[in-house]
């Protein structure tokens, strides 16, 4: 491999994933998600009756509260809240529970790079745990562009700092389908290859961005499979009796 990573990973290798759901007693749904040393807790309350002013009462509304590991929330956290809120709104079915608000609380446990993608994945797992109706899942990944033009996935904090540019990308999960292959195609590529959310930092060429998108997309399959396996496990735990 051309790129050497401190922890000996290959460029497209993710850090070990771990996810456990229903870990908190009070919230209606909760999950902890970790990628390597980055760990985030997510809790979901709701749906609760009523929406805030300025929100569309004909749809289900979401609010996101970001709790950093230490200190007060600033502009960074506000931006993350907004990105998470808009991402969640786009993957949930908003017409099922109109005029309700669902709160998602994100608690950062440890930040070792790829924090926002980690939080999006955690929120997604918690929403599933709470049984919020969703169109599909969202899988988030951080792609980094190294000096020599190579793309590295799921960087840790040290790598994030060294990179020239990075992109946080969120895709829909790879789904099972009984439909014949190739039926969900829009303009020559499967719908699930579309980007839900993209946030970039640093300057890169347009081609480099597409390289990031491509590499990120390739990683969604393994993330999706991890999600599915995780749900199967907990399903097995709870529904054996029936």
């Amino acid at each position: 491999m051309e790129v050497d990573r401190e922890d000996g990973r290959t460029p497209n290798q993710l850090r070990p994933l771990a996810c456990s759901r229903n870990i908190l007693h009070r919230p209606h749904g909760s999950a902890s998600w970790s990628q390597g040393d980055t760990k985030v807790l997510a809790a979901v309350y709701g749906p609760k009756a009523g929406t805030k002013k300025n929100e569309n009462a004909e749809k289900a509304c979401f609010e996101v509260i970001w709790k950093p590991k230490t200190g007060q929330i600033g502009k960074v956290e506000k931006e993350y809240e907004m990105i998470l809120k808009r991402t969640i709104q786009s993957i949930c079915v908003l017409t099922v529970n109109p005029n309700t608000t669902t709160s998602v609380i994100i608690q950062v446990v440890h930040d070792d790079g790829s924090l926002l993608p980690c939080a999006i994945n955690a929120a997604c797992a918690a929403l599933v745990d709470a049984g919020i109706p969703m169109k599909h899942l969202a899988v988030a990944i951080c792609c980094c562009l190294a000096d020599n033009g190579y793309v590295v996935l799921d960087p840790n904090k040290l790598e994030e700092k060294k990179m020239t540019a990075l992109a946080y990308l969120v895709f829909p999960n790879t789904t099972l389908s009984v439909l014949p292959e190739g039926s969900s195609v829009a303009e020559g590529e499967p719908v699930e290859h579309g980007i839900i959310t993209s946030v970039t930092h640093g300057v890169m060429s347009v081609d480099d961005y597409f390289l990031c998108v491509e590499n990120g997309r390739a990683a969604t399959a393994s993330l999706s499979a991890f999600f599915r396996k995780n749900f199967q496990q907990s399903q097995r735990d709870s529904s054996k009796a029936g």
Partner: protein
Amino acid sequence: MSTEVSTSPTSLIGQTVVPGDVVLDLSNMTNQTIKLGSGLRQDNDAISAMRAGKFRFSKPNKYWVESSHKRYIPRPEDTVLGIVVDSKSDNFWVDIKGPQLALLPVLAFEGGTRRNIPKFEVGTLLYVRVVKTNTGMNPEVSCTDASGKAAGFGPLKDGFMFETSTGLSRMLLSSPTCPVLEALGKKLSFETAFGLNGRVWVHAASPRVVIIVANALMNSETLSGTQQRIMVEKLLEKISE
């Protein structure tokens, strides 16, 4: 169960699905009428899951995704346990663990008239049936069955209520009788009411029995039938010592 993710399986019935999975293709089943239960939505010809859980089918034509949650989404004809939170001249407001409070009309009792409106204190536990769940409106519940008879609905006096998940209460309500109830029923005498909203009420002559039953039920969520029986036996042994 742990099938590898393949792109185009033929049928997903009995498997775990995650939101977004397309479970049915209506273009192949044009001359059938099907009924969709919870956790499914239609997008043109594709029926896809919107919750994670097990995809179920029951003859002749019912499909649903089975899952367990702490929050309850009301559906008509569900029987639930509600708590009175307020009373107005026409309705009682009842908390049924849903997104909105439910309305219980003061006349929705067997033989209910303007003259014999029941009086419920705030906090009263009621066994009720969900009647209407129109979007944009509060759900409506009733203390009668479809024919207007009381049929066991109404306030639950004494006893002990605890909250579990919707999955557990569905399991406890399933037929044939759930092993844990069967095992407990052989040794102890008690009264129970299960709401599909995850509330369980237990009543017995002595508080001891109530506590044993409640614990046994709460422990049973993740256990198989045999495990449940063993768990109940162990519990009873320990108590009788």
